[in-house]
């Protein structure tokens, strides 16, 4: 079947089998490998992307179901080279270690802050409670999201790359 969707603001179309999962469509058909996968049972949330602005587990959405909709992946977080405050916050506050769960965490964080610009710590923890991190222990992820909330306009990319 033929699917057409908007991914990170650009329209894409491909011919695929109906059973292709959105996560595979993104990674293999579109070569956007920033979205990862970590389990078989929709539990870990490593694969989270945004579908029409809402975080979803892309391993549990068919590419066919995203036809006609808008998908945002980690590759679409920055605005033409300018890092999103969430991305900045994760770097500043050490909100990542191995980086595998990070794209999903950041997209959920972005969606949260878009609706709730000043979340409490509890609200942040609840928002990411569908996603597992094995490295960080979550506190620095919470701090990263708080940093992004406190620096909404600070999306300046430091060219020096630390």
């Amino acid at each position, binding site marked *: 079947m033929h699917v057409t969707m908007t991914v990170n603001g650009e329209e894409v179309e491909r011919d695929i089998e109906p059973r292709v999962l959105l996560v595979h469509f993104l990674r293999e058909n579109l070569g956007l490998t920033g979205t990862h996968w970590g389990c078989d049972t929709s539990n870990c949330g490593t694969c989270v992307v945004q579908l029409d602005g809402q975080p979803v587990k892309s391993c549990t959405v068919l590419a066919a179901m995203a036809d006609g909709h808008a998908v945002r992946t980690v590759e679409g977080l920055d605005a033409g080279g300018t890092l999103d405050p969430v991305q900045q916050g994760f770097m500043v506050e050490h909100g990542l270690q*191995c980086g595998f769960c990070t794209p999903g965490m950041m997209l959920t964080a972005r969606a949260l802050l878009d609706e709730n610009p000043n979340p409490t710590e509890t609200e942040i923890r609840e928002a990411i409670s569908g996603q597992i991190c094995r490295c960080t222990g979550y506190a620095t992820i919470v701090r990263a999201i708080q940093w992004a909330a406190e620096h909404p306009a600070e999306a300046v990319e430091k060219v020096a790359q630390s």
Partner: protein
Amino acid sequence: MTIVDEPRTGSEHGRHHDHNPAADDAARPVGFGRLQRKEDPRFIRGQGNYVDDIVLPGMLHGAILRAPVAHARIVSIDTSEALARPGVRAVITGKDLEPLNLAWIPTLSYDVQSVLVTDKVRFQGQEVAFVIADDRYAARDALESIEVDYEMLPPMIDARRALDPDAPLVRDEMEGRTDNFINDWECGDKAATDAVFANADVVVRQEIVYPRVHPAPMETCGAVADFNPVSGDLTLYETSQAPHAHRTVIAMVAGLPEHKIHIISPDIGGGFGNKVGIYPGYVLAIVGSIVTGKPVKWMEDRSENLMSTSFARDYIMQGEIAATKDGRLLGLRADVLADLGAFNGTAQPTKYPAGFFNLFPGSYTWEAVHGKVTSVYTNKAPGGVAYACSFRVTEASYFVERMIDRLAIELDMDPAELRLKNFIATEQFPYDNKAGFEYDSGQYEMTMRHAMQLAGYEDLRREQAEKRARGELMGIGISFFTEGVGAGPRKHMDILGLGMADGAELRIHPTGKAVVRISVQSQGQAHETTFAQIVSEEIGIPPEDIEVVHGDTDRTPFGLGTYGSRSTPVSGGAVALVTRKVRDKARLIAAAMLETRPEDLEWEKGRWFVKGDPTAGKTIQEIALAAHGTMELPEGVDGNLDAEVTYDPPNLTFSYGAYFCVTDIDKGTGKVTVRRFVAVDDCGTRINPMVIEGQVHGGLTDGVGMALMEIIEFDSDGNCLGGTFMDYLIPTAMEVPDWETGFTVTPSPHHPIGAKGIGESATVGSPAAIVNSVIDALRPLGVTAIDMPCTPSRVWDAMQGRPTAPV
């Protein structure tokens, strides 16, 4: 040297704006200190390069057919239908591997394990056949077409029955084998310990089970094998924590010349010991590539990861502790039954078949100790050493910290006081722990008191008393752990004969930038930052001017890899020494440039200058350019600012910590809430406090996981009940508190920069603090013990006076 810092809690830190190095260059340390990570820019853009991201031209995909049963003879395997399916290029079975001598490969413990079953299945999930197809969907579909006829055999599941005379035999293929016994190991002094127990005022016994758990990194294991039939080169992209060790072993096993094997571990999505072993899937990808002449990718799914790759723990421990009435420790006995699964695939130094369980005396002085571990085969997946265990130190530490609290209950003594009374004193270091290990340094009482102060221990006990009066269940649990990490020296520690010493190479380019090549492999531990910081500290080049190269066997020196927290102790030592070598060479060149003698020069970070005349100096950058220039170099100095070193550490380093956990238990449901966790760690010299804190947070979360929810269980037929993340539960952000951390600094006297390992400390130390806290909460109900995981149901059973062992 002692430094005691104020703790930083998450909420405090989140409100401070003083930790944004990106905004303020002056705040970026040249050397040790909080430094934002150099590897982050690619990860936050989704540009990490993990094994499943790798796509090579013509690449095929492999999938493994796994046995659905735990113990069964293979009667027949029919692959004809699978081979006929569209897109399928090859189907390999054990019969195909036999002539290549690859049906069985050695494990890291001198046992053998099956790559594809030839005779019988020995655990549920074992590899039976390998399909190679054009894409992963076709490979997966083809698995269903393979027909296997199994003849069921009674499974050997209960480790406690593994040595019964009528126990089903797991390893019947081993000639002369009549039972499931693997080995016995002991340490300490049995006679002296027996004597101590015979004369002791107080003796307490306790069974303590450390159930089977799994490291479960978010990225599963996998490889892309690319064999070039013309040149004979094999390039293997692999999720490996030890690329060099893998290369050597694969060369030995597959009969491929080592110089033709190139292993690249790109970015790895978490290791935790899961990615140390050589799994059948890697071998099958290699064979697949050789057979098809194309690159072959194999990525396991999560159930394969949980069911077949290296599990951790599974120690059933009988403890006995002897003491005086007033709480002086006399003797400790540990008698352990270790369930290793169907093959001995434990990954620890050869001379230590029970890893470093020798750490079981913990942080205390004893008159005598004796430890014994008996290992057995069962029809379960192989493994045992994984999940940040520091080679069984998780087991040892959990054991002794549970026993100490058990004794405190018996003596009706405060568990903090009992520990303080029996700590190894600072002046007693280096300390022989009576079980074969010499601890390098520690200031236990200081660290303990710092943690008690941060936790507000006395206030907590007051609060607990008030709550108890109201019938509420609140617990305070303590764990004071000592671990030994950084394996080496090579004469004592090897894996398959490869001595555990690691190399480092440093090159300073003519324009003063540097590249350091290391043998260890990060799976998230920030090596690209911290190793640059070690070089930076020693030579004064800023970290952003230092590239750290790791993970590629062609581009890095030999070493045994990252596990057992050995990166900082071993590779960090190597890097410090290689930088000093370069710095010493720079001194000779600087002296020539300044027309003076080397002994007349003094060092300040970044340059050599003439003693007494600071204006007369040369920066490292200037020296580097001169080294490659036209000047006449001193005798014996060649024209570069490069060096290499292989560092053979003289001993392990012994990190330690004091952990306090506060839990509240819902009396009506048994649900445990971890309200607070205070962790004070001492890992000696601290390279990057931000990274250290992250390592500690991650390990504490492991502790909550194991203490409250993680377990791989089996039913009596040998079905693995923890094969998905629906049943193998890992904590989310809701199950853990905002961590409260602090630190003390007691350098390692033998380490080049005084640093000790930290990667596994919190995983080692935290489970006991949490479980002790649960027991403490339940004391008013007469509970003296409970085993992990403390799920609501198991807690409630304990509350009713009916605690059950998890295995």
